[in-house]
């Protein structure tokens, strides 16, 4: 036929399971065990409380600029719940819920925002990448990891996260396309929180959904309610099953909302209305999950209080540990290369002299750089 519509073989769907009142659609409910549900609830709450604590620490000048993830906890926690230990988790910067779930020591997270490389030194035995600042660059790392797994015959899956803004970057495109070509075990989760700092979602792309971008790469996608822990689990599980059985990549658009500031350096009042934020509050993933847990009798006020107390203590201890951390500025020289070349060793000596002079000069206490064997 000389003129005809083109049929697209790939499917995109939208999914939501838990409503604002905390009712789960029985046909779609992933039917988790009470233990699982309680663990998930606690994890979501933990992430929320840690965010709140970090906001206070920032105001007190005890950490630097901080970007909270409030309102987006389900979007990363759902997929984290689905990940196996050997799967790879490639975060952006709004996935503390998933990081905690994956076993990151909380003090590392605190220290990342406190300006310490220690916070990026991924715990041994955990297949995760550290927080990634340059938007969408991590998508290519995830594709590379997924490809590496495939080449090695390792059944692990790479779970990659980015924001709605990140979809505009070339690196997102190049990663998605590559993952499609090689049919990689690659799951890309877009946390569409409707804002990229001050740019609203509809100015980021004319595409009515972000999930439809998967069509450009020839694979499937699903738009899930990102504030619905069940929808996120189901979407991620289907994607993971597909990836594990050689079915290739999946794009998941998690429709969520950034309830707070972009970072503590940001003032959202300049660009968005309070009404919009109010509208989203009832959809808060924690509120909804809480309603569900109470409604199903898995939690009551007393149980929640207990969890809150435990969490408060856990956070208190982590802050304490974090604030005891003493960096060694020589580490910058030590970890530039596996071995220090002579010209860098000369810089290291210069640095040591400068540190010594600084301490003797102004009498202030400076971190004690450990001498280097090779400097």
């Amino acid at each position, binding site marked *: 036929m000389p003129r005809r519509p083109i049929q697209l073989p790939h499917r995109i769907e939208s999914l939501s399971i838990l409503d604002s009142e905390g009712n789960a659609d029985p046909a779609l409910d992933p039917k988790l065990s009470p233990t699982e549900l309680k663990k998930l609830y606690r994890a979501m709450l933990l992430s929320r409380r840690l965010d709140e604590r970090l906001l206070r620490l920032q105001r007190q000048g005890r950490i*630097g*600029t901080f970007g909270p993830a409030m309102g987006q906890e389900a979007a990363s926690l759902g997929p984290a719940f689905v990940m196996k230990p050997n799967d790879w988790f490639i975060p952006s910067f709004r996935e503390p819920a998933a990081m905690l779930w994956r076993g990151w020591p909380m003090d590392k997270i605190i220290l990342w*925002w*406190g*300006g*310490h*490389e220690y*916070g*990026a030194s991924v715990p041994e035995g955990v297949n995760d990448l550290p*927080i990634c*600042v*340059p*938007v*969408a660059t991590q998508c290519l790392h995830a594709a590379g990891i997924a490809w590496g797994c495939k080449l090695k015959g390792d059944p692990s899956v790479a779970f990659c996260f980015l*924001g709605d*803004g*990140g979809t*505009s*970057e*070339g690196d997102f495109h190049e990663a998605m396309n590559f993952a499609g070509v090689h049919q990689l075990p690659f799951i890309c989760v877009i946390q569409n929180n409707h804002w*990229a*700092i*001050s*740019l609203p979602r509809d*100015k*980021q*792309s004319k595409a009515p959904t972000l999930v439809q971008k998967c069509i450009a790469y020839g694979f499937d996608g699903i738009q899930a309610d990102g504030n619905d822990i069940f929808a996120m689990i189901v979407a991620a599980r289907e994607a993971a099953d597909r990836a594990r059985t050689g079915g290739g990549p999946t794009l998941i658009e998690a429709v969520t909302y950034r309830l707070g500031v972009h970072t503590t*350096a*940001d003032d959202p009042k*300049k*660009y968005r209305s309070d009404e919009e934020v109010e509208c989203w509050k009832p959809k808060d993933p924690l509120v909804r999950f809480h309603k569900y847990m109470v409604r199903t009798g898995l939690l009551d006020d007393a149980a929640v209080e207990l969890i809150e107390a435990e969490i408060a203590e856990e956070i208190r201890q982590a802050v304490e540990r974090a604030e005891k951390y003493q*960096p060694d*500025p020589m*580490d*910058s*020289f030590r970890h*530039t290369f596996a071995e220090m070349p002579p*010209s*860098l060793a000369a*810089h*290291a000596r*210069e*640095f040591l002299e*400068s*540190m010594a*002079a*600084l301490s003797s*000069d102004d009498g202030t206490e*400076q*971190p004690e750089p450990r001498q280097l064997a090779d400097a």
Partner: protein
Amino acid sequence: MAKLTMVQALNLALREILREDPDTLIFGQDVGKDGGVFRVTEGLYDEFGEDRVVDAPVAESCIAGVAVGLCLRGLRPVIEMQFSGFGYHAFHQIENHVSRFRTRTRGRYTCPMVVRMPYGAGIRAIEHHSESRETIWAHLPGLKMVIPSGPRNARALLRAAVHDPDPVVFYEPKASYRAFKEEVPDDPEDFPIGKAAVARPGSNVTIISYGASLRPTLEAADELAEEHDIDAEVIDLQTISPMDTETICASIEKTGRAVVVHEAPRTCGPGAEVVARICERSLMYLEAPIRRVTGYDVIMPFFATERYFIPDSRRIVAAARDVVTF
């Protein structure tokens, strides 16, 4: 005359050029309603509207490449990379096209754009927000590379950059954004691009610096005078490329001694070029080796320890004393 911070001075310059020339426009992430993450474009969206102060998607190559198209169509974009650490995403557009359109088309098309980027450490920012990579731009033929050191020259150099018929990469030292205020004349002024300034005259040693390092350099000069009886001449490069050999060498031929100061890593940094030019033209005037007080050849650390990696007046004083007593 008003006393302004550098942010206010840059804002003033942008307001002036938007008023002056209807073909100018501002394009970058969050430059609109938000006024820029550092507030450099504050109020401009309200005054000039959404067609002249335009928010870009999160795509830096897009910002630079679209600006090329705007130039070809006769506009004069002032684009912003939110942090210089994300300007690398646009490196290919700037190398492949921005720097070349004039020469490859023999002047038929040009790219009179300004690429603003906040750079450098010292404000406790997160990873990737604290580098100084002026070398990579200064090395590219066809581009000019300008770095102001204070409110007054920030305003005058940014105006000049916009008026320049060629592309200018304009690094803004974010550590100096709000660190101090300076008198900025009410009447618009342009400082010439390609000219260094003698920020402090002196006779015993020449200290060459620019951008955020100028303040500790001037402090060092004061201390050298007060405590060590050394009269340092301080040169503020202002333009990294094309570099003003004349002003540098004239000073060296007077003082016979030199120290170069910058935050960028040392290897292939602008300081190397300063030294090389001195050695080519004024070697025989040199009475002591030239010292480079610079960033070390390491990645700028996360902010908890970054301050030990930024040249401070102490290191500059020590180097100048070494050079003078050589």
